[in-house]
């Protein structure tokens, strides 16, 4: 992302964002609620257009027509804070992205089963989403993104409001997918411990500005910015 600005109704949500996501890393975007984390992720997923600046994906300028943006978007997978599952079975939810891409039925079946096993939901394929717990629903949402074998996995507060067991399960899956499949992960979180546990690098977003980006340990132990230090110490509260 190069000098990216985003406005909503005249309000500047993101200001002059310059951020480089490295291939194969887990990057956590930390910051208080309303800092612009979700907007940043939606810009990365090409769901939104920046008002100024450029976004490159795999070296390709994403400021192209919608058809080409869609093709680029199909290289990514996004998990939203709320699972947002369709009112049908777990299988149909996980299979949707593959069906959109026109995969044959047999391959869809195999990949969906594989993705469900990966997130610890083997045997859940025929379950209705309405019968799932919040943690299970979020893992279905994660499987729906992973089944596409994305180059870039975008996670927007994926464990907010989940119990510790589900949080650990999701974190473990993210770690595995990064290690075993080399998927680049960007995770927006206000859970500092999660960012510390999971990420290689951390970016601190504050009121739409990218205050600091660095190696996780460096940022947590020796933050360069005073605002980062205050936030990490829990003194900047919104």
């Amino acid at each position, binding site marked *: 992302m190069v000098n990216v600005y985003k406005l909503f109704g005249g309000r500047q949500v993101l200001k002059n964002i310059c951020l480089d996501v490295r291939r194969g890393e887990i990057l956590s975007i930390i910051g208080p609620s309303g800092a612009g984390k979700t907007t940043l992720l939606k810009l990365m997923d090409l769901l939104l257009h920046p008002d100024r600046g450029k976004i490159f994906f795999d070296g390709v300028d994403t400021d192209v027509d919608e058809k080409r943006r869609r093709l680029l978007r199909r290289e990514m997978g996004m998990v939203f804070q709320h699972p947002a599952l*369709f009112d049908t079975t777990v299988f149909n939810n996980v299979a949707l992205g593959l069906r959109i891409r026109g995969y044959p039925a047999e391959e869809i079946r195999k990949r969906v089963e594989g993705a469900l096993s990966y997130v610890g939901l083997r045997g859940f394929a025929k379950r209705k989403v309405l019968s799932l717990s919040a943690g299970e629903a979020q893992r279905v949402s994660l499987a729906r993104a992973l089944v596409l074998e994305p180059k870039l996995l975008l996670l927007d507060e994926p464990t907010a409001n989940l119990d510790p067991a589900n949080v650990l399960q999701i974190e473990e899956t993210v770690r595995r997918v990064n290690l075993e499949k080399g998927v680049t992960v960007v995770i927006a979180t206000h859970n500092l411990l999660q960012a510390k546990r999971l990420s290689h690098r951390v970016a601190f977003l504050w009121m739409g500005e990218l205050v600091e980006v660095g190696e996780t340990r460096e940022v947590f132990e020796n933050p360069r910015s005073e605002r980062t230090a205050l936030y990490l110490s829990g003194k900047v509260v919104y």
Partner: protein
Amino acid sequence: MGKAEVEKKGGANHLAGWEEVFYGLVKAVELIFSGDPDVVQITILSLRVSGLATLIGGALGIPLGALVALRTFRGKTLVVSVINTLMGLPPVLVGLVYYILLSSTGPLGFLRLLYTPEAMILAQLTMVLPIAAGVTISSVSTIDPKLREVAVSLGANPLQETAILLWEARVGLLTALVVGFGAAISEVGAIMIVGGNLLGYTRALTTAIVLLTNQGEFVEAIALGIILLTLAFLVNAILTLLQMRSRSSLFAQIYTREPRLKW
């Protein structure tokens, strides 16, 4: 109990209200099982006219409703208000307008459709279309906006996105058809005017009931009313069953036919 027995009791005209209903019920059973050719023809015509009006009205109204619900454009509120108003279109007015349009001196007189089943379909479809569109708008509008975002994020093109969202609103869409069919099959004013109630050609169950009532043949009228009610119940029961099934297996059935949905 047949008509002769009814007449022995002093004729249908002199029966008390509850007796008419009772004999009507008996007569209805008799008419259904005797396969009276007139009744069969009238019933089939009613089903054909209202069924086709519902199918065509749904085929046009559902995409129209989806378009209005999913797109943002200037004057959207006005369009929704107009559709909602048209949902309560008075059948007699529809009949009158089509009568003027289709009469020999009218602008569409050259089509020679007046007093034909096609004119009846046209009139009923004019009433079903806004109902289908209106119910679709309200069903699609209640879908969680996040689902739309998910569909786009998964890489859906605009057509796929619409199909996914319509599928999510499938119960509402079936409701649109149920309500549309209910309005069509029970309608009398419009088809009476444009169909002419011609025996063996444009006489439907509702128009036949009006005629029999005017002639004082209350038992037969009630019998046809019971057939009409049974018919409406059966069609609605099928659609309701589909609604219930659509929440479960129908999705899987359609979606696993992969070649059909290679978007």
